[in-house]
């Protein structure tokens, strides 16, 4: 298991990474044209009103003063209020609303990817160069090659329009609204923001069914892509492992080939796959943008695109830093998993 020292070292490394990202985002946004005061007041506002607001927002201060102010606030995870997309709301509360939405989608997508991808990769490797392997490889290649903006609408067309099994958009039935808290032992507790979890916490099985049916197509869209990468990596990693000396030794000791593969081969073959899963998870958060747009899900991905489009600086800064934080944390988890699978990595 990973030592505390190892984890602490990794956590400390987060500081320069996040500082770098924060600086980069600040510089990029301030190099871009577009007056935030105009963004807030809109096309109709007279110039005098825009000038007055610029002064009030401190946008006339020298850049280093604005930068200092930004860093100080960012260190407390305070990015101020959204200029446009969620005008007047604090960025923190917007992120609290949106991150669980995307996280839920990415998690289910990843779970589908792993559940389908790993067995498919193992089977392909074990049955190398057979028809099963060829079918699996073509499937994986298609999964990587088909863009989400095509596979998403195709799934809608098939499962929603023709078969009427799953709904085309949203996270839950249009007419179902959930309470904002759940109760445990008489205490009111906040919900997670993940609708498949919240409906269970609230004890609403039918709403849960609605949430799951709504999540199925978008999660599948992401899952197919994820599955393709995982199965390809699993296959090649497995093929490499089965050729190792210790595998031959195991078989020479009389262990059956299935036991050898699952007991000795699988665990070792997982290491590169976990790297892919870790890196890919960060990618999935970003890749959820397209899925969210296609399926009308208001997650952080679509919001970030809209915020960039609207020059909503505080929201962009807060979102990018949260992404960076999430991405580095996922990588930390990956590193810790490595050290569990192969303790030599900590050294």
């Amino acid at each position, binding site marked *: 298991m990973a030592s505390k020292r190892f984890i602490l070292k990794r956590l400390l490394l987060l500081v320069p990474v996040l500082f770098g990202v924060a600086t980069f985002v600040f510089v990029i946004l301030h190099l*871009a*044209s*577009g007056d935030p005061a*105009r*963004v*807030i*007041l*809109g*096309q*109709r*506002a*007279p110039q005098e*009103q825009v000038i*007055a*607001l610029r002064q*009030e927002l401190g946008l006339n201060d020298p850049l280093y003063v604005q930068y200092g102010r930004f860093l100080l606030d960012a260190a407390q995870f305070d990015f101020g209020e959204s200029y*446009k997309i*969620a*005008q*007047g*709301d604090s960025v923190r509360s917007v992120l609290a*609303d*949106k991150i669980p*939405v995307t996280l839920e989608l990415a998690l289910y997508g990843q779970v589908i990817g792993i559940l389908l991808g790993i067995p498919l990769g193992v089977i392909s490797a074990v049955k190398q160069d057979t028809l099963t392997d060829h079918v699996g490889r073509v499937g994986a290649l298609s999964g990587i090659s088909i863009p989400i903006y095509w596979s998403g*609408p195709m799934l*809608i067309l098939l499962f*929603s*329009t023709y078969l*009427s099994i799953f*709904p*085309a*958009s*949203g*996270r*839950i*039935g*249009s*007419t*179902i*609204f*959930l*309470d904002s808290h759940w109760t445990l032992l008489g205490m009111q507790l906040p919900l997670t923001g993940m*609708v498949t979890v919240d409906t269970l916490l*609230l004890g*609403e099985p*039918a709403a849960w*069914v*609605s949430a799951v*049916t709504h999540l199925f197509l978008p999660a599948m869209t992401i899952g197919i892509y994820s599955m393709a990468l995982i199965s390809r990596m699993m296959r090649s990693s497995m093929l490499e492992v089965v050729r190792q000396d210790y595998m031959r030794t195991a078989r020479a000791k009389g262990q059956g080939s299935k036991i050898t593969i699952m007991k000795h081969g699988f665990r070792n073959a997982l290491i590169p796959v976990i790297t892919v899963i870790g890196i890919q998870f960060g990618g999935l958060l970003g890749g959820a943008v397209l899925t969210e*747009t*296609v*399926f*009308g899900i*208001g997650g952080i991905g*679509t919001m970030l695109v*809209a915020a*960039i*489009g*609207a*020059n909503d600086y505080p929201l962009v800064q807060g979102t990018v830093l949260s992404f960076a934080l999430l991405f580095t944390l996922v990588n930390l988890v990956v590193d810790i998993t490595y050290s569990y699978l192969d303790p030599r990595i900590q050294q």
Partner: protein
Amino acid sequence: MRLLPSIVFLTPSTGTLKFGFPPYGCMADDSVSRRSFLKAAGAATVAATSTAGCTGLTGGGGGGGTLVYSRGDHPTNYDPQQTTSGEVAKVTNQIFDTLIDFKPGSGGELTDGLAEEWELNGTTATLTLKEGIEFHNGEELTASDVKATINRFIDDGYEYFLGTENRSGYSSVTFGDWVDSIDASEDYEVTIQLTQQYAPFLRNLAMFAAAILSQSQIEEQGSNPDDQAALGTDPIGTGPFQFEQLDNENQRVQLSSYGNFWGDGPNVGEVIFKTIGSNQTRAQDLINGDTQITDNLDAQSIQQVDNSDSASVVQKNGINVGYMAFNHARKEEFRDPRVKRAITMAVNRSAIVDDIYQGFAAEADQPLPPDVLGHNDDLEPYPHDPDQAESLLEEAGATDLTFELATFSNPRGYNPSPIQTANQIASDLDKIGVDVEINQFSTFSSYIDYTYGGQHDACLLGWYTDNADPDNFLYVLLHPGVEASSLSDDQRYISFEEKGNASNVAAWVNKDYVELVDEGQTTYEEGSREEIYLEASQIAHDDAPWMFIDYAELIRGVHESVNVDTYTVSSVGGPYLELVEMN
């Protein structure tokens, strides 16, 4: 769990009430809390409303039901004084009322709103409020609500002022520039003194930004502007639908019908605004019946809806204009009308409208769209005539003309394909030897900053009306914003530094035009006012400060579960969802 009336639905065969689980989770649960509107509507309505609680999924019931309106964006604050966004207005127009309203389905004709009588005499506007109108919190509307509403928006000395950082750009445009004082000493009479005679003022009172808020809610929010800003997350109005909840995680707004609404309707039990970013998915959602009405469809999704059996496309002329503005301050050649006419004639505008905008627009020939007072029917679009264009350029000595054409990237109602439009213009002008360099902006706010700052040679832009008044086009977009007396007779442009009107990106000056528009602002008699604007439109057409491109149509998709005859597409104000009935 808060559940909608959808928990109960009628079985058609027996007519009995039954609990059950329709598709996608409209479900039964006796422990749910009922919404307040059920109380108001009375027990008799329960069955009807309940029947159609899942209308989007299972078909509607007469006089009740849920109307799901899908759109492309989800704002999170529904305070009419904090935004210029049409997406917010769609919702606030259901919750709030204005003193005067636009008649549904008309091209901007005024009708009574909260006021039963109104009059603008000189610099005094007098409005008599209808008696017995109640806000959703049960309090009666009086003149003091009107006064508090306007003060909150414009008066920084008012205790409950919204704050410069929170109020929208409409603050000055709607009231701030014109209102001197408000007298609300009588309960049902409001007298507004204006700083000057201003003909469009009554139309300003019909704008969504002029919606009347409840004084008690304003005061309950407190004197801190940030607390005032929070009003938009729990708005209370007098409109046909009352605010129930804002579900930001799922991008929905839930409204329920208001039983004590003073006007016609509402005919549905509740309205849910939900957001689906992708046009195609929104259209598909409509076809599936999960959405009843949707808007902002692009050409492809219009086709999708049109080809379906379950939904139809509804169209109406919009009150908007799309144009290419010539920057007279920056490019000397543009001060010669012959050059601008030549450019206009060289560009095949009907091809832009028919092919790029897929025919969902009409070719423009003047700044005012057809439904607006002063639109000059005698004018015709300049013909597409590249040969004559070349001769005009030669005559003007501008044969080696080159210019930059700035454009935004994302579609807007008046220009569904800006990049393609810019390319078409550049390609047509190339044929007569004019070199155009396209400067493309990825974000609209950067683009506005650039063009309002006058950094462009020419730019693509457009305008939707706020109040269907000619002044809202002719002053806002083409008046220099300075006194006519400060201009000389032969002046053709004004610098961006001197200009007092940010949205006039052409920086065009024609003293006769300026005098006419000034006169139009202070003329109250409609016939005389029309004459003035007919002449102003003629000048703008002849001098061509813009290449007039199009007047775009408004397109909506409507599901068969809606009685399409009861849904009127509004070119200004609305949507009037209180009039909509389900089949």
